[in-house]
């Protein structure tokens, strides 16, 4: 069992990192798109009211400063606050927020256990009364784990209830949505059970990680083992859900919504556009000369009877 737990834990972390990376790479490898800005664009100077550089006469002659960090910090902060939901749909937020906090905290808990194990291998003793870093690890682990199990469980149940009773949500939900809530609920409850009945100080988790790092067979209580197994399955399952939105929203905001980079003559961007104009067009409507490149199709307008059909 210990070997199996170790293997699935290794696999789960490698898998989730690999899958998320693959998804991010797929997004990043998509071709340059037509601009599709949406304001406010937070790196703009006048982001407060949603202004852009287009408010300046002869904007191309002016020096622009992009405050990218502002956008980044705003998105990071929103991951912990979910402000749009708070201000626009408070009852949904009340269910969503504990759920999300549950996720953030449970992942933090497991990462902290890993680092605590590393610290232990370096000679640190972890406990409530040892003071210093040892006590810090002890309390951080406690304060990430227990709230995550409680908040995650509450959030899972609340969202299950909300999704199944609110008509606007229910009509758009598939069986998988309900499975997700139930599965995540089991993950959180298993952690809660393990903590309450078998491992109130989480020393078992730290020992588990210590064994994993030193490539020894881990030994944990059955309840703890169950939670570790479920958490690994949770990590393996996450890439198949929309959980990537924690990351994808950064890509979408920076590369779509806030992508206001102008195409100036002679720029690298212009070269990219020129390359894309050589792509083949195979759309079949009568007004399009299928088979030509974008540059050809866009500059050679067919006359009636030569590819231009009636709609």
């Amino acid at each position: 069992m210990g070997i199996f737990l170790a293997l699935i834990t290794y696999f789960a972390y490698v898998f989730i990192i690999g899958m998320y990376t693959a998804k991010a790479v797929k997004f990043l490898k998509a071709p340059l798109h037509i601009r599709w800005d949406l304001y406010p664009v937070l790196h703009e100077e006048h982001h407060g009211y949603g202004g852009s550089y287009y408010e300046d006469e002869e904007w191309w002659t002016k020096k622009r400063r992009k405050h990218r960090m502002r956008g980044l910090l705003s998105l990071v902060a929103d991951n912990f606050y979910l402000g749009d939901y708070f201000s626009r749909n408070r009852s949904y937020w009340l269910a969503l927020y504990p759920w999300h906090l549950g996720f953030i905290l449970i992942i933090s808990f497991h990462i902290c256990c890993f680092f605590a194990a590393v610290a232990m291998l370096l000679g640190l003793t972890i406990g409530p009364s040892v003071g210093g870093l040892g006590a810090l690890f002890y309390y951080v682990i406690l304060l990430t784990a227990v709230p995550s199990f409680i908040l995650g469980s509450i959030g899972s149940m609340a969202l299950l209830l909300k999704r199944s009773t609110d008509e606007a949500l229910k009509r758009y939900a598939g069986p998988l949505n309900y499975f997700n809530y139930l599965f995540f609920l089991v993950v959180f409850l298993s952690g809660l059970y393990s903590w309450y009945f078998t491992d109130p100080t989480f020393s078992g988790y730290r020992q588990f990680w210590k064994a994993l790092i030193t490539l020894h067979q881990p030994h944990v209580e059955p309840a703890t083992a169950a939670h570790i197994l479920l958490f690994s399955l949770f990590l393996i399952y996450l890439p198949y859900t929309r959980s990537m939105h924690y990351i994808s929203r950064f890509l979408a905001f920076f590369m779509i919504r806030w992508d206001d980079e102008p195409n100036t003559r002679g720029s690298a961007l212009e070269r990219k556009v020129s390359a894309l104009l050589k792509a083949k067009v195979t759309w079949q409507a009568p007004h399009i000369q299928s088979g030509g490149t974008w540059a050809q199709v866009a500059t050679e307008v067919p006359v009636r009877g030569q590819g231009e059909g009636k709609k």
Partner: protein
Amino acid sequence: MKEYLQVADIGKETDQLVTIEAADLMSLPPPYGDLSAEPPLRSLTEEQKKRLDASLDGFIAIGIPRPQTAEEEQALVTKFLAGVQRLFSKEDNWTFLQPLLHSLDYCVKCQICSDACPVFTATGGKEIYRPTFRPEVLRRIVRRYIKKEGSFVSFLHGNDVELNWRVVTRLAELAYRCTLCRRCAQLCPLGIDNALISREIRKVMSQELGLAPNELHESGTVKQLKTGSSTGITPKALGNIVEFMEDEIEEKTGRKIKIPVDKKGADVLLVHNAGEYMAWPENPEAFAIIFDAAGIDWTLSSELVGYDAVNYGIWYDDVQAARIAIRHAQAARDLGVKRISVGECGHAHKAIMVIADRVLTGDLNIPRESALPLLERLVLTKKLKLDPARNNFAVTLHDPCNMVRLMGIVEPQRRILRAICPQFREMEPHGIENYCCGGGSGFAITQSTTFPDWRSAVSGRMKLKQILEAFDRLDDPTDYKYVCAPCSNCKGQMWDLFTYFDVWERSGILYGGLVELIVSAMVDLKEPFIEWEFH
């Protein structure tokens, strides 16, 4: 009774999926609050119903002929799927592939965007108009018919849309119940853009099936590319119009102004929506008066397409959009102007400045800007002699979505109004949170059968509410009020909207552009430039 329409109902065998009753509609402020006093929404004739598919909501934007045989039904489905497949091609759809993939993959259907939609809100929450409805239909089709998910996975995802011809025709029409205002997208914390998906559906219909509203395609982009303008104005006709405007300027102001046309090497090529020449010539006239008074080195173009800034392609067809953008740039290049300045037309702003930004290269990549910052400079640096007292009437500002939410041009027009209109007041919400006029994305020009009723009673309803709430004394038509709408399409919509609700007669509310207000404030004009007549 509350309807419980499901996503899969899009393919339901029924004559009409949804009916809009007057009682469903959002009420307007007094004295417009009596729903029973509103003009009734007209129904299609039996002949129209027999000939065209109106099975979505009883209205028609495209006017798709009902398929007569099983083969025709199948052809619609087959072509649609081929088109959807092309949406995922890096070559065919490099233009919007990345935003599309993101919006298809990551929506969690939290519905936080629903209330942002003026159409959904105005109809009391008709499910088909919910911003997430049409994307969800497409998403389920993609999973089941393009990605070909197995039956169990498909069941888990709830992919229950059975693709048939009705789904195709209804989805096509449904894509034309969204004004592409992107208010829903603005609110999405995950960056999902439901309006983009509406546009992608429109694109499949146009670029693959050859289906688009006549006013956008045949009488729109095709006509513009062929004759120079979707209004039918030819280069020769433009010459006559310019002469007419010069005469009218002299008549109104006593000034003899020569409007420059095809002036080589001018600093500014000013491009107007040609609809202005036809419906509101006072707008290009006002530009001419201002530029003349300020000594701007400018010109109009008489080159085919170059004199009509519209580009309806941006609403439904990437190919047509690119073709028109290139023709605009060619006209500017041939004149050797230093910059292109876009007049008061929101979508023309976005088309040539934002959309065309990744189409135009080399010598076609000419600097392009809005005319508003230039006007702002002229007003605020006292290049023009202005007296705000001449505009002492209530003025509010409509923010065209394309120019404001989608381009971030928010303050120049406001700074001008604050300087020249003592009774300027904002409508709520405003700026980048504004509501669409209801005529966005081609609705303002779509005249198909009873569609104008839907446009006025439904998609324009929220804007009318905002306008009415911005003013006092709505029951006094002699107390003149002015809605400044620096966009031709928005003005077109307001003409319809105000006519439908009799707003001018009942409340004395007129709409018009920004430059008319600037000229109206010019101290050396003997007669008021703004004529308080509804047109």
